[in-house]
């Protein structure tokens, strides 16, 4: 490791500046390729297959017919340029291939060559290109410099979803045997052990026991962290980082305190000890279903009535937008609650009912701002009103914290910038990309730090939390500035009064 590659951290400017393009600025960046054993575990070839070109075009053809959206997105672009300066990776790296339109064109140009009449006969006229080894390498490079955050899609007049193009690109790469080590190794661990970390049941039990002791020592209250408890009302699925890492674990403590105060029985599952579903990132529905099914199976086995998901961005997208199709129906659960439910919805409704009492002064040493996670902001909702995914977390924060300031409007809500580590890019081999991609968020943060003395950046996604904790020191911010929504909740909850 540990000497990290040297590169220049972008300077934080007072106003965002669209950089002049630098051809090939990120040509040297590509993540490690997955080993054969991890590829095969997911049903992909172990290494680059013979006749890979035909296999790739075949798979592209299948995707075009299976998912009409992919073909529409490849056909619809008119090169208006609205997306070009919307991507955090372009803003942070200046590599023109990180402009969303250029990234899509890597696939689009090949699609034109083999799947459109004009491209078959007059390739040069329509910018169609042959699928060559160089193109394949560019796919691998630049489809792993997109975090599938979909900010560009918000600005696209045709609503082209760049993330779906990236997912299709990664799926084709996997189909010829070139997968990304980070994501594919992790999906394999879920199959083998039950979570991204590879945390086996005894270690999980030991960790949870330690947390019970810790909360008891801090508060004097017996807050439980139940595991595999049959007959509990609620199954909580949460990113395994919540068990393992800081600042995540304080969010987990916050959930447990909420359950305790509400007097509702809950449990974690050692079989489905992961909310994350990295198969979304690689655009592979078979694996996405397989990962998700563990949660349904665990819910049935434990006989729970509700499923609540913890603070994880893409997990909430998968749960909210894909679960019903992948692993539904949820007719075995209590019909009085949305299925699935986000922990913020859960806490928010208890708050509104007056079940939770907060001592806001407990957070008076913090001046906070909130980072909307891309998958929650642009691919899901919370509550029963449009925009609930923006309102609910903020209402929770304001209920337990006296000092809250939003960042600039063009950087929050549906316009939020990715943390720079989403979509399967939260890996050390992409550290340069992660640091540079964080630039727009860091600039917006700097602004509220200077203006309002903000001390903490609150997040509701395990990836955002880890990414910020890692890259913020590059920009002169302390890694301790990042905290969970439910850490604020846990710290402010009045544990003396019980339900």
């Amino acid at each position, binding site marked *: *490791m*540990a*000497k*990290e590659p040297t590169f220049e951290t972008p300077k934080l400017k007072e106003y965002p500046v669209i950089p002049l393009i630098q051809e090939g600025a990120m040509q040297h960046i590509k993540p*490690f390729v997955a080993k054969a054993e991890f590829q095969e575990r997911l049903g992909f070839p172990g290494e680059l297959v013979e006749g890979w070109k035909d296999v790739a075009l075949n798979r592209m053809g299948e995707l075009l017919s299976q998912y009409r959206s992919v073909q529409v997105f490849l056909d619809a672009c008119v090169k208006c340029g609205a997306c070009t300066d919307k991507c955090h990776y372009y803003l942070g790296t200046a590599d023109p291939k990180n402009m969303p339109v250029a990234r899509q064109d890597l696939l689009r140009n090949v699609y034109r060559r083999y799947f459109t009449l004009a491209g078959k006969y007059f390739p040069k006229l329509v910018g169609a290109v042959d699928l060559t080894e160089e193109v394949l390498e560019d796919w691998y490079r630049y489809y792993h410099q997109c975090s599938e955050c979909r900010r560009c899609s918000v600005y696209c007049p045709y609503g082209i979803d760049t993330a779906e193009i990236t997912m299709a690109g990664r799926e084709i790469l996997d189909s010829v045997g070139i997968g990304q*080590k*980070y994501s594919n*190794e*992790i999906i394999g*661990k879920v199959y083998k052990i039950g*979570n*991204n*970390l*590879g*945390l*086996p049941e*005894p*270690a999980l039990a*030991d*960790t949870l026991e*330690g*947390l019970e002791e*810790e909360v008891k020592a801090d508060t004097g209250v017996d807050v439980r962290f139940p595991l595999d408890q049959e007959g509990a009302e609620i199954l909580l699925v949460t*990113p*395994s*980082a919540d*068990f*393992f*890492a*800081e600042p*995540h*674990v304080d969010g987990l403590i916050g959930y447990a305190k909420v359950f305790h105060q509400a007097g509702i029985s809950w449990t974690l599952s050692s079989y489905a000890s992961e909310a*994350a579903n990295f198969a979304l990132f690689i655009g592979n529905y078979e694996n996405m279903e397989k990962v998700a099914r563990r949660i349904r199976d665990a819910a049935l086995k434990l006989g729970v009535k509700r499923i609540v998901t913890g603070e*994880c961005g893409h997990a909430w997208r998968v749960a909210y937008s894909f679960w019903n199709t992948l692993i539904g129906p949820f007719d075995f659960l209590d019909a009085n609650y949305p299925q699935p439910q986000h922990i913020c919805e859960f806490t928010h409704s208890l708050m509104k009912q007056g079940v939770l009492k907060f001592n806001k002064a407990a957070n008076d040493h913090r001046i906070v701002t909130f980072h909307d996670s891309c998958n929650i902001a642009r691919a899901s909702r919370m509550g029963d009103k449009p925009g609930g995914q923006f309102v609910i977390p903020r209402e929770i924060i304001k209920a337990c914290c006296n000092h809250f300031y939003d960042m600039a409007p063009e950087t929050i809500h549906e316009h939020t910038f990715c943390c720079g580590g989403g979509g399967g890019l*939260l890996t*050390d*081999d992409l550290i340069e990309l992660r640091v540079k991609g964080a630039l727009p968020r860091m600039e917006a943060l700097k602004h509220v730090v200077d203006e309002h003395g903000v001390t903490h950046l609150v997040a509701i996604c*395990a*990836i955002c*939390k*880890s990414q910020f904790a*890692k890259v913020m020191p590059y920009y002169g911010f302390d890694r*301790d500035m990042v905290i969970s929504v439910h850490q604020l909740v846990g710290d402010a909850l009045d544990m003396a009064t019980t339900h």
Partner: protein
Amino acid sequence: MAIEVNGKTLETDEEGYIANLSDWSPEVAEMMATEDDCELTENHWEVINFLRNYYQEYQIAPAVRVLTKAIGKKLGADKGNSKYLYELFPYGPAKQACKYAGLPKPTGCV
């Protein structure tokens, strides 16, 4: 990839984590630390040894709170926090310390 320790070639992954846990010896940690311009003190060894023992029992590195609690008990409450661990292992206690201890790299959203 591979590293050479005491004349023996040890296989590693792309980031220098040793591939076979049984290849580990204290010299492996010493050599990795030297490469990072880091000098291993007794306190570093407290962490490394705890990681190895925990891994032997649970087949995973300890969660950060398990680690800070254990180190706090051994070295004093003022050292039972991740700030102290970052002082010892500036590249991140979970990863750098695991690497020196011969453990695989923690994966996931960490």
